[in-house]
């Protein structure tokens, strides 16, 4: 077996210096005893050590079937050891466990579809992250993002006035093309609140423009908040900071409630959808989200089927479609997404495996957010994705998720695939009828 590479991360190193054996033991046992209840016990008791989850994992497959990168192999290197030793593990062990849980698992849940017993390994990795959070050994870059969440209630240190400014700027731009176009701020009683992730106003403002163009041309009754609560993203969910996750989601739902909207429509982001639709609501005690949450893919499908947007021309170049785990394994939107892709693209080529069995981008689950120290390992761990993309032979890939874009960009660059990535909204904006445009 190749020698295991343990990567040095400044945040992890600095945190680990302050650890004592007593603190580690107390923290691990507190999380296991008080937070992880029946499920952890059942999962650990039930696991037959059969290794059948291995083939599900892109880390395992990309690293030449190295057993230390299989889902159950990751559990062995983390949870099993902690349970066996009843929390009496070293700081060195914890550093390694954090690397495994925080950077070598995307929590994509593909292994759930491979385990005969339905054991949720992503859940166990999230427990390790939770322990890491309480021990303050979260990797530096993602911790910085979590700090941004707690200081500004958005992911990218965007100041309150910068947010409004970015929207007004995009509205200005919009009016060049659509003289009556608006980005309505703080419109109480609108049908839709449109929320995005921090990176959109920060460096992907054209996505706000495109969404606004689609909303305007479709005649939607929509609004965006002018206050914190506009950001639906959530890296606290991925660092095990459940308290902060709760605060973020509460503010997001509260903002929608204050604006008295009927539904929240979210931009093309996967992890944010997981947070708002699947995880954050649970932390707050709602079985399902208190306000209807609609991901962009579903929203586009609705608009298309209600005849609110129409196809003006087809995107001719051959395209493939990458299914993001959080909206496909997390919400089953793969067929709707394909309906929209086929409506707008004349030559759609499937990659395999696809739909709910698609390979992850290796960026999700907060892995790309752990930053430069882990980038090379991450790209190396997703060779199967590069091969999968290459097999399609196409030069354009639609990936309706921000994290997927980040992860796939790195893979495309490293493996020299020469593929261009697009959001689905980009194609819709380019190819739809624009009756109000000049």
């Amino acid at each position: 077996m190749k020698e295991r590479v343990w990567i040095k991360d400044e945040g992890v190193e600095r945190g680990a210096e302050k650890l004592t054996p007593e603190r580690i033991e107390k923290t691990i046992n507190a999380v296991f005893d008080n937070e992880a209840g029946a499920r952890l016990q059942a999962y650990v008791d039930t696991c037959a050590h059969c290794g059948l989850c291995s083939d599900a994992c892109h880390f395992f497959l990309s690293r030449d079937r190295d057993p230390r990168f299989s889902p159950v192999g990751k559990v062995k290197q983390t949870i099993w050891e902690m349970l066996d030793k009843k929390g009496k593990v070293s700081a060195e062990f914890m550093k390694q466990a954090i690397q495994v849980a925080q950077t070598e698992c995307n929590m994509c849940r593909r292994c759930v579809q491979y385990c005969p017993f339905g054991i949720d390994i992503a859940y166990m990795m999230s427990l390790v992250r939770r322990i890491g959070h309480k021990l303050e050994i979260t990797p530096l870059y993602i911790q910085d993002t979590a700090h941004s969440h707690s200081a500004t209630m958005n992911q990218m240190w965007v100041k309150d006035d910068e947010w409004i400014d970015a929207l007004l700027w995009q509205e200005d731009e919009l009016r060049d093309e659509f003289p009556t176009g608006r980005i309505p701020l703080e419109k109480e009683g609108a049908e839709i609140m449109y929320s995005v992730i921090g990176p959109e106003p920060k460096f992907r403002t054209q996505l706000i423009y495109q969404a606004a163009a689609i909303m305007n041309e479709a005649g939607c009754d929509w609004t965006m908040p002018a206050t914190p609560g506009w950001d639906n993203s959530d890296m606290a969910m991925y660092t095990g900071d459940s308290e902060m996750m709760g605060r973020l989601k509460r503010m997001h739902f509260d903002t929608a409630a204050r604006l008295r909207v009927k539904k929240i429509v979210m931009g093309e982001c996967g992890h944010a959808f997981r947070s708002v639709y699947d995880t954050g609501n649970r932390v707050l005690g709602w079985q399902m989200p208190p306000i209807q949450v609609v991901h962009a893919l579903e929203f586009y499908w609705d608009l298309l089927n209600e005849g609110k947007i129409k196809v003006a021309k087809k995107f001719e170049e051959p395209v493939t479609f990458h299914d993001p785990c959080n909206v496909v394994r997390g919400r089953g939107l793969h067929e709707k997404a394909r309906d929209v892709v086929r409506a707008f693209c004349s030559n759609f080529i499937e990659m395999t495996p696809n739909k709910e069995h698609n390979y992850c981008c290796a960026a999700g689950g907060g892995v790309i957010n752990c930053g430069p120290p882990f980038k090379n390992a991450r790209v190396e761990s997703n060779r199967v994705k590069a091969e999968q993309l290459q097999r399609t032979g196409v030069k354009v890939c639609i990936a309706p998720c921000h994290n997927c874009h980040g992860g796939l960009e790195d893979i495309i660059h490293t493996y020299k695939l020469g593929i261009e990535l697009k959001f689905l909204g980009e194609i819709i904006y380019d190819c739809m009828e624009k009756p109000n445009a000049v």
Partner: protein
Amino acid sequence: MQDVYLLVSGPLAWAAWTIFVLGSIYKVWSTLNTAKKKDQVLLNYVSFRYGMRSIINWSIPFNTVNMRLNPVFTGIAFFFHIAFFVLLIFVSAHQIMIEEGFGIGWFTIPDFVADILAFAVIGACIFFAVRRVMRPEVSYVTDWTDFALLALVAAPFVTGVLAYHQLGDYMLMVVLHMVSAELLLAPLTRAYIGSEFGMVRHVKDW
């Protein structure tokens, strides 16, 4: 020896079944009870419909992607479980005991078929053991308990074959039959994740 046989086929058999049934009930009860105290999520999301949807889909041979990916393992694993229950219920020796004890009976399989099945089950157990050693991703997560469990499962069949061929002691088989009735909890985890995937995420988990 007669006394030991009577003890094992009588009170000990009752004890084993009682422990199995009560133990299973306790396991379910304690899981639910722990969930109620510390893991409310479990109770809130577990759904009969989607739980069953998942279990049924995972009970059909070659129905899941992973089963098709490992056809040999899938074939042997399904054969093993089916043969396990066929032998348990339809072997004539079992049947005689049930009829003597409870006065009820049903059809049985010929002894030579049972014999072949038992040998095949032992073969399957050997396959599982070899796989544990040979496949790196399996051997990496294997410890002695996995082999112990496998030995425990194989024991009734080995002893059954020995007893049938008059090479050993029949009572040993009975005892080990009782002990190896474990792992009933397994479907519960499938039911939970099936519920989450079906009810919340609207997607297949197989």
